[in-house]
C-alpha cells in the first residue's frame, strides 16, 4: 500500500525494499523461536478494555487528541504499582493499560463506539496473554498487539456489515 501510493518516489521504493531485505535476512539467519512458552495472567488482560475505553472517551468525546489521552492514561497506569509496591499483580498492570490506551487512540472513523473498542480490546487481550514470552523487552510490542486487535475487530465488522448484520 505504501509502495503503491509512493511509486513515483524512487527513494521510498528503495527504502521499502532495503527494509524488507534487512528484516528477511535477519529473520532467516536468526529465527526467533524458543522452547518454553509463558502466558500472561487473564486478570492482567482485563485491564486492556479499561485503558482502551478511558482513552477512547478522552480522545473522541472530550476531543483532547489521541496523544494526550494515551499519555494521560499511560502515566496514570504507570503509577498504579506505587500504591502497593509489594503487590506482584499491580506491577503487571501498566503494560496492559498502555496497550489498551493504543486501541483508544483510534479515530471515530475506525472505532465507532464503545462496542468496537471492547471487541478490539478482547482480541488484543487474547494476544497479550499468548505473547508473554515473544518479543520480550522490545519497543513497539504493545502497539503491535493493539494494532492487531483493531485490525481483527475491523475485519469482523467488515464481514458482518457485508452480510447485513
Amino acid at each position, binding site marked *: 500500500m505504501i509502495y503503491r*501510493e509512493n511509486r513515483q518516489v524512487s527513494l521510498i521504493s528503495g527504502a521499502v525494499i532495503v527494509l524488507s531485505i534487512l528484516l528477511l535476512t535477519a529473520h532467516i539467519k*536468526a529465527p526467533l523461536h524458543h522452547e518454553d512458552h509463558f502466558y500472561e495472567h487473564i486478570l492482567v488482560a482485563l485491564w486492556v478494555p479499561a485503558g482502551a475505553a478511558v482513552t477512547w472517551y478522552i480522545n473522541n468525546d472530550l476531543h483532547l487528541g489521541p496523544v494526550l489521552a494515551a499519555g494521560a492514561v499511560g502515566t496514570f497506569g504507570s503509577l498504579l504499582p506505587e500504591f502497593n509496591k509489594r503487590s506482584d499483580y499491580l506491577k503487571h498492570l501498566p503494560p496492559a*493499560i498502555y496497550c489498551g490506551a493504543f486501541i483508544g487512540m483510534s479515530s471515530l472513523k475506525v472505532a465507532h463506539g464503545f462496542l468496537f473498542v471492547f471487541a478490539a480490546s478482547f482480541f488484543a487481550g487474547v494476544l497479550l496473554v499468548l505473547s508473554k514470552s515473544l518479543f520480550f523487552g522490545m519497543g513497539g510490542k*504493545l502497539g503491535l498487539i493493539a494494532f492487531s486487535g483493531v485490525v481483527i475487530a475491523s475485519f469482523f465488522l467488515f464481514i458482518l456489515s457485508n452480510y447485513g448484520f
Partner: protein
Amino acid sequence: MDFETGILLATGAAGAMLTFFVNEKLKQGPVRSSAGLSLLVALFFHLFPHSLSPVLVKNIPLVFIGGSFIGMVSSRLLSSYIKIGLAGVIFCTIFLNTSRFFTGYGGALGTTASISLLAVLSLPVLNLRGRLTNGFEQLRKAVYTEDKRRVK
C-alpha cells in the same frame, strides 16, 4: 528535505533517545517514560497550539509518542543511543509515508515503531568478543535467559 520534515525527523530521534534515557538511566520504567514524556509534549501543544506551524503542531506529538515506543526497548537488546536515534529517524520516515488506508487505526504508530526497531536490530554489529552478530541474536539470547530465569 524541507525544514518541517527535518524537525519531525529530529523529533522522532529525540523521542526515542529521551524515553530510553528516562527508562534506563532514571529507572522510571518503560511505560511511565513513554507516557509521561508524550503527555508533556501533547500538553504543551494543546496549551500553545499556535507556537509552531499547523503541520508541526499536528504531527510533532504523534511522531514523539511513536519515537518513544522505540525508546521502551530493553537495554539488553539495544543500548546504543545512536542506533535508537536511527530507529527514530526510520520510524519518522515510514510515518511520513504511511498509507492513508491506516489513518485512525490505533496501534499503527506502535507497529511502525516495531518495524523500525527490528530493522535497526538486524544491522550487523560487532560484539565484545569481536564476533559478527546482530540484534536478533541478542534478542534470542535475552528471551532464552529470561525463560531460564523463570524456570529456576
